[in-house]
C-alpha cells in the first residue's frame, strides 16, 4: 500500500472497490437478498391471507376441494423439493471449498429436481383440467357433491377454493421456473470456473432464493392438500 492519494489497493478482481473486505461484500449481498425475500414474504402473504379468510368462511368447500387433490403426488413433490434444497445446500458448501466439478454436478441435480417438481405439478393440473375443476365457464363440482354427500357444497364457493389453489400453486410454480433459470445461469458460470472460495456470492444468493421457494411449498402443502383428510363420519 503506498501513501499516494491515488493509492491502488491490492485485492482480487472479485472485490468491488467500495467494499473494505470480501467478507463485508458478502454480508451486504446477503442482506440485500434477505430484504428482497422480505418483500416476497409479503407478496405470498397477501395470498395466504385471502386463503385464510375464505377458508374460515367456506370451510366445507375448502375441505372437499382439498380431498380431491392427490395427497401422494403432493407428498412426493414436497420430498422432491426437500431433496433439491439439500443439493443446493451441498452445492454452496462445494463452492465454499472450491470443488468446481462437485458444484456443477449439484447445481445440475437441483435443476433436474426442479423439472421433476414442475412435471408432477403439471400432471396434477392436467387431472384438475379433466375433472372440470379449473375455475371458469366449464367449472363443475358435481363430482364432489356426488362423492361427499355428507358435506354441504356450494358450487361458487368451491370455485373460490380452486381459484386460490391455482393462483397459489401457479405463483409458486412461476418462482420455480425462475429458480431453474437462475440455476442454469449459475451452472454455466460454475462450469466456467468463476466461483472460488473467495467469491461464491451468486451461488449463496441463488441458494437463498431456492430455499425460500421451498419454504413457501412447505406451507402450501398442508394448507392446500391436508385441510381435512379425516375419515368422514
Amino acid at each position, binding site marked *: 500500500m503506498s501513501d499516494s492519494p491515488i493509492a491502488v489497493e491490492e485485492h482480487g478482481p472479485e472485490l468491488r472497490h467500495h467494499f473494505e473486505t470480501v467478507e463485508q461484500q458478502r454480508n451486504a449481498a446477503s*442482506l440485500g437478498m434477505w430484504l428482497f425475500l*422480505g418483500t416476497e414474504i409479503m407478496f405470498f402473504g397477501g395470498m395466504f391471507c385471502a386463503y385464510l379468510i375464505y377458508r*374460515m*368462511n367456506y370451510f366445507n368447500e375448502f375441505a372437499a376441494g382439498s380431498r380431491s387433490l392427490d395427497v401422494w403426488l403432493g407428498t412426493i413433490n414436497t420430498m422432491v423439493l426437500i431433496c433439491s434444497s439439500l443439493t*443446493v*445446500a451441498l452445492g454452496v*458448501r462445494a463452492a465454499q471449498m472450491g470443488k468446481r466439478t462437485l458444484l456443477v454436478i449439484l447445481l445440475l441435480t437441483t435443476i433436474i429436481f426442479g423439472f421433476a417438481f414442475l412435471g408432477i405439478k403439471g400432471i396434477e393440473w392436467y387431472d384438475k383440467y379433466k375433472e372440470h375443476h379449473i375455475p371458469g365457464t366449464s367449472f363443475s363440482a358435481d363430482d364432489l357433491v356426488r362423492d361427499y354427500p355428507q358435506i354441504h357444497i356450494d358450487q361458487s364457493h368451491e370455485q373460490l377454493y380452486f381459484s386460490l389453489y391455482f393462483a397459489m400453486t401457479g405463483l409458486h410454480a412461476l418462482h420455480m421456473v425462475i429458480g431453474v433459470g437462475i440455476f442454469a445461469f449459475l451452472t454455466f458460470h460454475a462450469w466456467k470456473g468463476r466461483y472460488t472460495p473467495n467469491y461464491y456470492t451468486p451461488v449463496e444468493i441463488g441458494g437463498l432464493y431456492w430455499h425460500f421457494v421451498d*419454504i413457501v411449498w412447505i406451507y402450501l402443502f*398442508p394448507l392446500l392438500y391436508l385441510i381435512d383428510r379425516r*375419515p368422514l363420519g
Partner: protein
Amino acid sequence: MSEHIMSSKLYYGIWITLMILTVVTARVAFIDLGPFNTVVALVIATCKALLVILFFMHVKYASEKLTKMVIISSIFWLLILLFLSLTDYSTRALGHG
C-alpha cells in the same frame, strides 16, 4: 456471512429430519384429532421452515445481526397482515349475520 463451513453430515441429518416430518404430516392428517389437525400441520410446517432457515440458509451462523433483524421483522410484518385481517373478518359476521 457463511465463512463457517458446515459439515455435510449435518446437512444430511437436516434432510432426513425434513423427509420424516413430511411423511408424519401426511399420515397424521388422516387421523381424527378434532381441531388439532390444523394445529399439528402448522406446527410441523413451521418446524420444517425453521430447519431450512437456520441451517440450509445459514442464518444460525450469520455474523451479521442486521440480517437476523430483517428476517424477524419480515415475519412480524406478515403476522400483522394475517392477524389484523383475521380480527376484522372473524368479527364482522357478529353484527350483520
